[in-house]
Structure formats: C-alpha cells, structure tokens
C-alpha cells in the first residue's frame, strides 16, 4: 500500500464505456473475470436463494406434510400477531438497546485492543497475549454463563468480594432487571473481544512500515502517527465490518441471552431471538418464527442501506 489512503472502490480508473455495444465488448475483454465468478454466484443462487424462497412460509400456516403448495395462506397474520403482542415494544426496545450497546462497546473494543497490541514490541509476549485473549471465543455460552454466574454470585463471587472492599453491599447482579444488560454486554466482550482483534491485526500487518518511518522523520509522535496513518489504513476494514453489522443489527443472538435469563431479569433481557425460541420453535410454530425472522432482516436491510449510502458519501467506502 502506498502513502495514499485506499483508493475508494467507486472511483473509476478508466472511463466506463457508455453505449451498449461498447459495454458488451468491454465485458468480453474481461470475460475471464466473469467466468471466474460464475461458480461462486451459482453457489449462492443454489444454496442460499433457493432455500430462501422457502421464507414464504411466513405468509402461510405451514404444515410440514402439506408442503409449500398445500399449506394455507394467511397473508400478514403472523406479522400482526407479532406487532400486537402486548410485550412487543418491550422486546423490541431490549433488542434495540442491546444492538446499540453492541456497536458502542463490542464493535469498538476490538479496534482499541488491536491498536494497543500493535504497540507491543516484545514479539513473544504479543504472541502469547494474542492467543490467550482469543481463546474465550471457543467456550460455549453455557460455559461462559456458568463462569459469570459464579463470578457475580452475591455469596461467593469475586465481584461482590471486591465490592465488599469498597464497603458496598453484595448485589445479586443476575437477579435484577437493572444489571442484566451490562452482564450481557460484559460477557460478550470477555468472550469475543480477542477474537475481534484478528481481522484488525491483519489489516495493521498490511500497512507499509516506511510510512511510519517517514512520519517519525517529520517529527510526528506516536499518537499523531496513529491518527494520520493507522486509523485511515484501518478505515476500509472498519467500514465494511460496521456495515455488515448494520445488517445484523437486531440479531443479538439467542444462546448468549438465554443462558443468563431468569424470571427476575427477564423484563430487560427478553429479545426477539429468545422470543422466537419460546413462541415459535418450541411450539412447532415455524411460520411465526420465520415471520419474526423476516421482520428482523428487513429492519437490518433498511439500516444497512442507509448506512451504506452515508458511508459512501462520507468516506467513499461502501459494501456495494
């Protein structure tokens, strides 16, 4: 990579031919590219789009044995059912809040951590730390929740012991509405922040060290170097990861919340994914579950489209 920031993907190097014949001839010139991409496109069409059409069951009362053609159509019934559920707004609020916290904390933390790791000189230490911090990602949520429930226990957990040193009484963190979101975000951070650094470390590895040398010659300190070199170099990666996250905005995750839920904290911890599980999948309500899933996806798509356009205008980076 040279000294300039990444060439925006939308800027054209050559003038794109305008009239149709020119276009076709242009495409023919690069036919190898199209051929190369064909298997991949076919893959998506066959293995993703065809099953995706099965989403029509969201508009039916799907019967496994009658299939798509034999199941009765009910239009938007499942959607009205979802919206009119008395707790829908609360569930949506919980989901949105967690999505926002996710972006505020879980998205930014790996970047910061990667930058900190980048400043480490001792190679062996860096290697060890990298391996250790990415290891929790491999633990299942059941185990992670076991660890956190233990740590946060009012009677035997470290957290409350430390609170005791500060003179504060033991808090039953998981037995209260008010702490559960923090627990969810915190456990998510513990588990995944190290994993999240991988991609940023890869991006950092691609930066030309000469840039830093030149900057030092010019008298720029580390902080300034980071602002002018490192961050702009990371911008493309950060952008696409952010945009991809927009698409999954309402997908906080089922298991990671389910393992921490109990009736004492459920008011603040019930999200769309856990609701789908309880209302849909355990009761053979495939259509209803699919409908809720569609709703999540549509919202994600909407957010992504907006974010993509804004990003294109602001930084020139975009997903498409």
């Amino acid at each position, binding site marked *: 990579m040279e000294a300039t920031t990444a060439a925006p993907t939308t800027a054209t190097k050559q003038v794109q031919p305008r009239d149709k014949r020119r276009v076709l001839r242009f495409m023919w010139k*690069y036919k190898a*590219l199209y051929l190369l991409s064909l298997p991949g496109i076919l893959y998506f069409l066959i293995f993703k789009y065809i099953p995706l059409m099965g989403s029509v069951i969201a508009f039916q009362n799907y019967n496994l044995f009658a299939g798509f053609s034999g199941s009765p159509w009910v239009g938007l019934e499942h959607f009205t059912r979802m919206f009119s559920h008395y707790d829908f707004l609360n569930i949506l609020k919980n989901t949105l809040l967690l999505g926002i916290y996710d972006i505020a904390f879980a998205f930014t933390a790996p970047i910061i951590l990667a930058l900190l790791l980048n400043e480490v000189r001792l190679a062996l230490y860096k290697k060890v730390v990298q391996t250790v911090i990415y290891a929790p990602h491999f*633990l299942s949520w059941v185990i992670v929740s076991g660890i956190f429930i233990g740590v946060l226990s009012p009677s035997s957990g470290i957290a409350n012991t430390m609170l005791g040193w500060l003179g504060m009484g033991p808090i039953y963190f998981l037995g209260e509405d008010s702490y559960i979101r923090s627990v969810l975000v915190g456990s998510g951070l513990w588990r995944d922040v190290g994993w999240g650094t991988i991609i940023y470390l890869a991006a950092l590895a691609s930066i030309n060290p000469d840039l830093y040398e030149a900057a030092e010659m010019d008298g720029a300190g580390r902080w300034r170097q980071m602002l002018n070199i490192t961050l702009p170099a990371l911008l493309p990666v950060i952008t696409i990861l952010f945009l991809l996250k927009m698409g999954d905005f309402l997908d906080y995750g089922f298991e990671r919340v389910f393992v921490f839920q109990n009736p004492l904290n459920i008011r603040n911890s019930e999200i769309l994914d856990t609701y789908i599980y309880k209302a849909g999948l355990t009761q053979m309500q495939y259509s209803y579950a699919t409908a809720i899933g569609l709703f999540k996806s549509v919202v994600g798509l909407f957010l992504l489209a907006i974010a993509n356009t804004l990003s294109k205008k602001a930084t020139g980076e975009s*997903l498409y």
Partner: protein
Amino acid sequence: MVRRESLSRKLFIIFNYTFLTLLSLTMFLPFLNVIAQSLSSAGAIDRGEVMFWPVEITTQYYKYVFEDVSIWRAFGISVYITVLGTAINLAATATLAYPLSRQEYVGRRLVLMVILLTMIFSAPLIPQFILMREIGLVNTLWALMIPTAISAFNLFVLRSFFAQLPTELIDSSRIDGCGELRTLWSIVLPLSKPALATVGIFYSVTNWNKYMDALYYINDRAKYPLQVKLRELLITDDLSDTGNLAFEITSQSVQGVQMAVILVATIPIIMIYPFLQRFFIKGMLIGSIKS
C-alpha cells in the same frame, strides 16, 4: 531516528503492558480453572475446592473420553473436514472475491447486493432440509463442506482486502500476458497473506465446530465428526420441553467430564492461531511489492 522516549510514552507503555496482562489474566484464569477441574476428583469439585490447580488429581475423565476408540476416527474426520473444507472455502471465496474486487467487473454492485441479501435474510430450516435431500449430498462428508463453501461475511472481508491492492500490479500482470486466474494465483494471493490467514482462521473454526449440520445430514454414525461424538458424552440439560417428563435428565455428566470434553473439543483449534501468527507480522506486503 529519534531515540529519546518521552515520559508520556514511557507511561503509556507501562499502562499498556499492565492492561494487557490483566486482561489476559481475566481470560486465562477461567481456562486454568477448567483445566484444573478436568483433572480433579468429583468430590473435590463438588466441595468447591478446585481453583487454579487440580485437587486429588485423576485422569478418569480423559480416560472416559478416549476409551471409546471411535473417538479417534471422529477426530480424524474433523481434521479432514477442517483441512479440506477450509481449502475449499478459501479457493471458492478467493475466486469469487477477486473478480468482484476489480473495477472492470461491470455489475459487481448488483452481484454484491445479491450476496449481501443472502447474509441478511436467512432461510428457515425446513427448506434447507428439502434442498439437501434434493441435491443428494445427504450422508456424505461433502454435506459438511459444499453447502457452506462461501460465507458472505468472509467474502466481503476478502474482497475488501483485494480491492486495496495496487492496481498497477494487476495491470502489469495482464500486460505480461497472464490470464486472470494466473494473476490471482501469482500476484494477488501472495500479497494477501494476512487476509487469507484471517479468513482461513474464521473458516477453520467454523469447520471444526460443525455440529448441527452433521446431526442433520449424516446418518452413518461412523462418519460423525468429533463435536458430535463429544457432545454425546456430555449429558446435560435438554433445553426443549417436549411435554413429557419421562425423558428429563436427572443424572448429568459430572463436572469433570464436562470440562474434559470442553478441552478436547477446543484445544486443537485454539492451537491454529499461534501457527498462523507469522502472517500477521507488520510490513508483510512491502517486501513483495518492492520485488
């Protein structure tokens, strides 16, 4: 080069090392606890005596895991799926990411949008079952490698890395008469080692952890990958409620077995990262570009 380090720099370094060490400890200590439990007697675990060091050391849990000889075959299958599967993943993803990263690909915006949609909208399970049946991959190991050949997320990541490569290199390769495939192979890939390593890790972990796919699509128990066999050893609560209590679990696996199973399931794949870390060293690209 300026050598003098300012005070603020020194403070920062101290803070950095301290912070990273503490952070690593918070993640390492629970693991240490898991390892300790996997080697401690059931009584010691129940009494809560096990912290970071095994109490009343025993290898019974590991013996229990490995006494079923078929676990080694399952291990082999998992290695096979991870290696071959990841190779397929990388090949498929790279050959799609590369064209889509080129300005010359007219309509790439459309293709990218199409792929993006498959990421945002996920198909319900039952149509997936039906598709797999129709395609005829059921009960083969291909069922674990082909349907998940390309992850849209990884595709976008790899494409983004490819798009940042200097176009002069690719142009000159074309001028030299290389076809696109050759360009991809000789120029683009060698320059993308960090990206490939990253995406490779992502795919490897997914392949190693494959569980539900194997359960759904493989009926021959001899073809089960490691995760399925290990999960069978773990008798834990059934999250679903079928309405009939007769099948409830009252005798869960002892904690020690659970811990041993976790370690056997995860240590092999955790070890991948240290081996790939050489691709994450700074300035990887530069030597190659200069030459």
